[in-house]
């Protein structure tokens, strides 16, 4: 695994096998944020088990490719590169999860944790109460400043209707999302 400076958030998700079980449970908890039972959207995967690598190029405000087809149970390694001038997220989840996450990210912007083109990691430790965290360390997503890259490995052991999306304010509404079709 390449060390990507500043991305210990992603490192935690993909590095050690012993964390996988905890993180599989975390994948469920990651979405719930105390909101209740989450749909099964798959789980973080092992890079060594990845059947292929998909490079996702992120611009303002768009993903390329715009749709991704996977097989059920397949493990895919995503290399996400932000070639835009603004902060973008690559987040795997259901439309409902994205809608909830948009509210969280809007709050992060309101509190100055995120700016349109900067991430203030030091401010992410803040606990705003009410079950809302200001950190952004869910294994099903990466958050990138302009020019940065990160990896995310995901095992699609699921039938859920998934989308990949950027939940920075206004981006999803501008169409910054794509379908993940899960075939047999």
């Amino acid at each position, binding site marked *: 695994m390449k060390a990507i400076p500043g991305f210990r958030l992603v490192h935690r998700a993909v590095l050690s096998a012993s964390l996988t079980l905890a993180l599989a449970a975390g994948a469920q908890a990651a979405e719930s944020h105390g909101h209740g039972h989450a749909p099964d959207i798959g789980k973080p995967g092992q890079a060594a088990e990845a059947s292929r690598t998909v490079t996702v190029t992120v611009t303002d405000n768009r993903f390329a490719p715009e749709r991704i087809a996977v097989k059920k149970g397949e493990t895919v390694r995503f290399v996400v590169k932000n070639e835009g001038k603004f902060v973008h997220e690559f987040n795997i989840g259901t439309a409902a999860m994205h809608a909830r996450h948009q509210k969280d990210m809007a709050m992060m912007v309101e509190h100055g944790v995120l700016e*349109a083109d900067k991430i203030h990691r030091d401010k992410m430790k803040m606990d705003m109460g009410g079950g809302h965290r200001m950190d952004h360390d869910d294994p099903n997503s990466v958050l990138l400043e302009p020019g940065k890259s990160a990896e995310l490995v995901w095992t699609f052991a699921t039938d859920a209707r998934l989308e990949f999306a950027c939940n920075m*304010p206004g981006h999803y*509404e501008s*169409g910054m999302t794509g379908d993940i079709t899960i075939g047999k």
Partner: protein
Amino acid sequence: MERTLSWLGWVAAAAILSLSAAAGAATHDLSIGRIPVDFSGAPATAIGVNGTVPGPVLRFKEGEELVINVTNTLDEDTSIHWHGLILPFRQDGVPGISFDGIKPGATHTYRFPAQQSGTYWYHSHSGLQEQEGVYGAIVIEPKAREPFRFDREHVVILSDWQDTSPKQILANLKKQSDYYNYSQRTVGDFFSDIAAKGLAATLEDRKMWGEMRMTPTDIADVSGYTFLVNGQNPDRNWTGLFAPGERVRLRFVNASAMTYFDVRIPGLRMTVVQADGNNVQPVTVDEFRMAVAETYDVIVRPMEDRAYTLVAEPMARTGMARATLAPREGMSAAVPAPRERPLLSMSDMGMAHEGMDHGATKEMDHGAMKGMDHGAMGDAKSDPFYAPGSGLLPKAADGGKFLSYADLKAQTPLYPQREPTREIELRLTGNMERYFWSINDRKYSEAEPIRLKYGERVRFKFVNETMMAHPMHLHGMWTILDNGSGRWNPAKHTVSIAPGATVYTETEVDAPGEWAFHCHLMYHMATGMFRKVIVEGAPQAARLGQGG
């Protein structure tokens, strides 16, 4: 053999001809003339473009050379100005500044390249013809992909219509400045007041308010309008179709003569992606206010298989424009009741008289906005572009977020950020009693032109000493609004200055020639709130682009 060769010759000639036609020039033909209309429920006469009000949507492609032939079938001069377009000044369409206007019976040909993309509009710059119907939208398709995507789009033109001729409206305003204001009285009320109280008492009553230069309800100086969406009144209910789940782009144009509209779609949030034709960092709101002449492009995503009502409520709450977004024709949704008329507060009052407390209005120095904590600007109870405690402070009808100028940040700045070379103060002034409006207490006919130097970056300080909001529009060059966003300050063509407010804008002076600069409230412009801007010192190469 001979016949084959000559056949080939014809093919070659045809190919050469079509190549030259396709060499970037697109031709559009417009004809301006009187047409019968029925907007208010009674037949009336408007001036249409190609037989309609609004005129046709003009679709250009960024980069193409445009040839637009405009024919005048009226018995008075006319003109078309391309609002928000960057072009050589002789193509700008302002009689007395760009050209002599289009004489009755004549056809004038405009030629200029489309140098930008987005949503704009066109309108007459002659007399009061804009109020009579000479307006329409411009859509310029971009060369590069836009930073948003959508499945379909609709142009939504908001406008205001009166059966009374604009000349008569202006005469009424000159005779009696608050003719249309005092509790929204109609002609009938005026005459019944005279019958009840006598002419002297009625006029004295009006004069008293006039001397204070306000009544609390003086939000709009003309009422009695019918409000239109794409030329249709609320009963006709213009309908834009969608398939549930689609992202729909709505290109809103405020083509009215005098009306600020508060726009919302109950049940649908709107993501603003363009303001005045330029991409902005997307911001999702529940309602936004459009000053006269502004444009906003928003993305909506109606998920349900039902109709949604599109409400455009004038800021003065004098009526409502209404339309529908629906999956099929013939559907409608509930139309909300009109809201309470706002009352101007003391901080909205103009600084007309000595001895008045100007403290409240002086606090609006936007220079102080640099370095502000932007988190604090999300406070729903204030908007830095309105005087503190302003009665015009916008509030979202159904709760939620109301767009502020403070929310507009350029997606891709048009110019690098740099210090301005000088500052010019423009006090927005006027005399309600005699109904003329002015800048620095001088109307157009009494004023010197504003002279700018090519290559400078001028900072304008607008100080609104009146109790009306004024949408200020500089032709030919972008107006960069200082909303504290630094390099992301948005470039607009029209900036509204609220009563009692001070607003700063900057302009990179890069367009040689002479340009109009005025309040876009039509009767204000017509009575003097106007200046000519002369850009001097452009090098020869720059001036060669003037063409036409």
